[in-house]
């Protein structure tokens, strides 16, 4: 009994701290203009000249960050994950000797990719710096006010000057086009597989699978995907949702997942109690 009470007491504060950390990260991610911007901030925190930055070290730092965020079960925007995948790819290229691909063509070397990324970081940093300098200048209407007299010696106007700028024209044309095509207000729905759908689907398939099927123990996750062998957005979403649903079932201790290498196939197996339950059924 003492143990049973002690465990929740230990876990509760820990979870709260994690949640707090998670909140902080969500807040701080909001401040970034995307993964490159985040990467630049990380690079700056190393307090070294960007021209001498180690892209490999930076890649590792970013991957560690993404890993940490995912452990806290924070959903990261897709572009941050894509960046992580790319950096993992870059890291492997930097660490392994260049291998010609199937067609015998030399791919871009890891060094060339790292150099391109370093250039991009330097350029973005330069732009952020000059943007700040630009807006620190005395601005018209803010620090320097336009001067206009309250009146001329003789008030009667003799000519008309028409006021209009390019934005007015574009805005007017935009209004006509919007009026002519009210259907552009329609909200298109996309045939994507939702998380709920994927969870039901996966649970159903696993639940209804004869226990004899599990003899080989590890089955490729691909086998649980809908049978659409194309690279459409739909399939990609099904892949993402099925994987997330599988991860959720791991969390519920129903199944195990394994992957033997980056971008390798993912395998799924039943946890024992689930297997027993399946056998009973």
């Amino acid at each position: 009994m003492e143990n049973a009470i002690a465990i929740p007491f230990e876990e509760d504060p820990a979870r709260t701290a994690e949640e707090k950390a998670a909140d902080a990260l969500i807040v701080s991610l909001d401040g970034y203009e995307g993964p490159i911007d985040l990467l630049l901030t990380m690079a700056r925190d190393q307090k070294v000249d960007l021209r001498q930055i180690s892209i490999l070290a930076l890649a590792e730092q970013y991957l560690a960050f993404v890993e940490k965020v995912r452990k806290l079960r924070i959903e990261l925007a897709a572009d941050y994950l894509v960046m992580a995948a790319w950096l993992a790819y870059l890291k492997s290229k930097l660490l392994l000797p260049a291998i010609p691909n199937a067609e015998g063509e030399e791919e871009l070397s890891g060094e060339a990719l790292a150099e391109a990324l370093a250039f991009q970081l330097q350029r973005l940093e330069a732009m952020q710096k000059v943007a700040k300098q630009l807006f620190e200048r005395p601005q018209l209407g803010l620090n320097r006010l336009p001067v206009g007299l309250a009146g001329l010696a003789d008030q009667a106007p003799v000519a008309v000057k028409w006021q209009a700028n390019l934005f007015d024209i574009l805005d007017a044309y935009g209004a006509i086009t919007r009026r002519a095509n009210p259907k552009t207000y329609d909200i298109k729905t996309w045939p994507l597989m939702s998380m709920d759908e994927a969870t039901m689907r996966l649970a159903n398939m696993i639940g209804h699978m004869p226990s004899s099927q599990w003899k080989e123990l590890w089955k490729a996750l691909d086998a649980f995907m809908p049978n659409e062998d194309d690279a459409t957005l739909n399939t990609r979403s099904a892949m993402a949702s099925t994987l997330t649903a599988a991860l959720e079932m791991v969390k519920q201790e129903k199944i195990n997942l394994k992957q033997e290498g980056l971008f390798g196939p993912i395998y799924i197996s039943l946890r024992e109690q689930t297997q027993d339950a399946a056998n009973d059924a």
Partner: protein
Amino acid sequence: MMLDPNDDTRDLRVLEAALFASREPVNTDKLKTFLPHLEGAGIHALLAKLKQDYADRGVSLEESEQGWAFRTSADLAESLQTLRVEERKLSRAAMETLAVIAYHQPLTRVEIEGVRGVATSKGTIDMLLETGWIKPGRRRETPGRPLTWVTTPAFLDHFGLESIVDLPGLDDLKAAGLLDRRPAVAVTADLFDEEGGAVLASEDSEDDYAEESEEAAA
């Protein structure tokens, strides 16, 4: 110039700048808000000094019932005739008509109405003719030989365009947010399809979506 903030010179400069930057005459109470450390007498002394400084210049400081204001000096009126210009804004209808002519020229009045979906009053074309931004083009070789309308070089000049093809196209307007009110997810999907997955991050996409849904609902 290393000025003591309490120096008379700075006060005089503030007063001068405040008077020049105001479109309407400024009364002494209002002037005091710019120089809260001064008494009314101090303000008046500065105004007298300022008036003196400008006695022989092209503008002079004058006091009226509404307050103090700089005006062009009376003896220059003749040389400044062309300054007496009244600024007027184009009506929304004129703006739209101008936009349609710019994008679809040459086109006839009936065609303009077709694009805008509204009848064009004669006053609208007249107003545009007055701006010097449009002119009649060739007659269309169809029954009735209707007149077409085109933009002028003055149009390009006024709007800072080198040529009429430099007007942003529909796709550009869409990207600039001037046309399209579709939710952001569709745009992301477009990127996927066109560029083979080379999608960059879509910033603020959720905010965009929320904003536009509200607009649509309104």
